[in-house]
């Protein structure tokens, strides 16, 4: 966009583009601030990804353990319900004395939330395994761990993936609240846009959040299809 008016220091000498008009949708903003958007997206992906991987790494053994040792099961469900009920703003702030103003505060909070969703869904998936199938495997001479790994885990995959997708989508959205400790990824752009009433920044960052959430969901759906070939052709 070229500025035709020269010389006079006047309102008309300011280029009339979407940045000046403070439009919500502004290609000029995306073009000129690509580096900021990229950095925000990278931080967002890093926080979300680490939180989900850690959540999964803890949730799988926890769910298996809660199944093998029946007594710790109500405790697991009870603790996870309490954790999930704590609002994100409170969660991050309660972690702050331990991890300070750092990405670790946001990641820890998000791990606790995703853990809750994942443990419940994996447990539900394991519970739904038909007793006849279990008996058949035991009758074929399967041991406890081989039964778990070869029969129960594969059959629990659809429910586990459903949980992982919910966890991924909500983690992407919740990461924005991390802006309260200065590590909110795209959430930082949203609050910065708020304090400078910069609509394009707010809208673009918000849109990117939704795009990331949808992309994560579709990616996991594809992974689920690849991991459960016997389910192909079925709905869901």
């Amino acid at each position, binding site marked *: 966009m070229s500025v035709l008016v020269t010389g006079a220091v006047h309102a008309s000498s300011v280029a009339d583009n979407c940045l000046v008009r403070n439009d919500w949708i502004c290609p000029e903003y995306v073009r000129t601030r690509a580096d900021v958007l990229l950095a925000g997206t990278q931080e967002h992906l890093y926080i979300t990804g680490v939180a989900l991987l850690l959540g999964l790494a803890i949730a799988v053994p926890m769910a298996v353990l809660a199944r093998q040792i029946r007594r710790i099961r109500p405790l697991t469900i009870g603790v996870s*319900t*309490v954790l999930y*009920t704590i609002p994100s703003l*409170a969660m991050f702030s*309660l972690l702050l*004395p331990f991890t300070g103003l750092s990405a670790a505060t946001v990641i820890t909070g998000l791990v606790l939330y995703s853990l809750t969703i994942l443990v419940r869904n994996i447990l539900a998936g394991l519970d739904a395994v038909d007793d006849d199938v279990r008996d058949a495997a035991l009758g074929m001479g399967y041991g406890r761990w081989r039964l778990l790994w070869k029969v129960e885990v594969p059959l629990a995959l659809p429910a586990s993936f459903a949980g992982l997708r919910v966890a991924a989508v909500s983690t*992407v959205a919740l990461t924005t609240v991390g*802006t309260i400790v200065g590590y909110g990824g795209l959430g930082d752009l949203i609050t910065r846009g*708020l304090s400078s009433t910069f609509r394009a920044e707010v809208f673009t960052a918000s849109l990117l959040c939704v795009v990331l959430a949808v992309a994560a969901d579709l990616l996991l759906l594809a992974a689920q299809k690849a991991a459960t070939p016997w389910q192909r052709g079925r709905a869901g």
Partner: protein
Amino acid sequence: MGWVGATAEWFGDPANWQGRRGVPALFVEHMGLTVASLGLACLVALPLAVWLGHIGKGGVLAVQIGNIGRAVPTLAILVILVLAPRPPFGLSVTSALVAFTLFAIPPIITNTYVGMREVDRGAVEAAQGMGMTAWQVLTRVELPLATPLLMTGVRLAAVQLVATVAIAAIAAFGGLGRIVTSGYANRDVGELVAGAIIIAVFALVIEVLMAVLTDRVDPAKRAVRRARARTRQAVAAGSGPTPAGAVTRS
């Protein structure tokens, strides 16, 4: 561990418990916004989901709306409404209510719809066979049986609202989240941890209260309670069947 002392000190300071920015005033504001948006969301979502579930259409929409609700960050919608050009939006109660209501609708719709669809088809067909009208089937069979899941949706929405109203403080709205944001602004760990504790306890209390309410309004459980009470009365009066477990020991 200086934060423990600082938090205790904040709770002990009478100045934090009075005036427009005191805990009671902020609590009333938080509660008011939560209840108002929950009421609005129920008003919109319950009839729609019950109707969709009754006619068995719009299942994809009912389930997808839950996914959309999860994918859109609450903070984004709040900030967009604050920066919206003219009244009634901007930093106003209307903006707050619109944003909160929008976020409370998805869990209510999804759970109510699933609850309505999961009603035993046999029960519905039996009711139709008995000559019940569509309205009677809806109000006497489907709704009572769908109540537990319907209430789960309302409970999820209520707890989520408490969290969303807290987040709204980041976008300069009121409520208990103000204590937390003010703690960050003042670099006062005691203040922000105290605010976080108050919000967390508030959410947990709402969760428990809604669980109790769900138990109370579930028609199936109420019927069981009534039947038990009748049996107790009958036994006390020396007539009626001997309740199970009251077998005389030999």
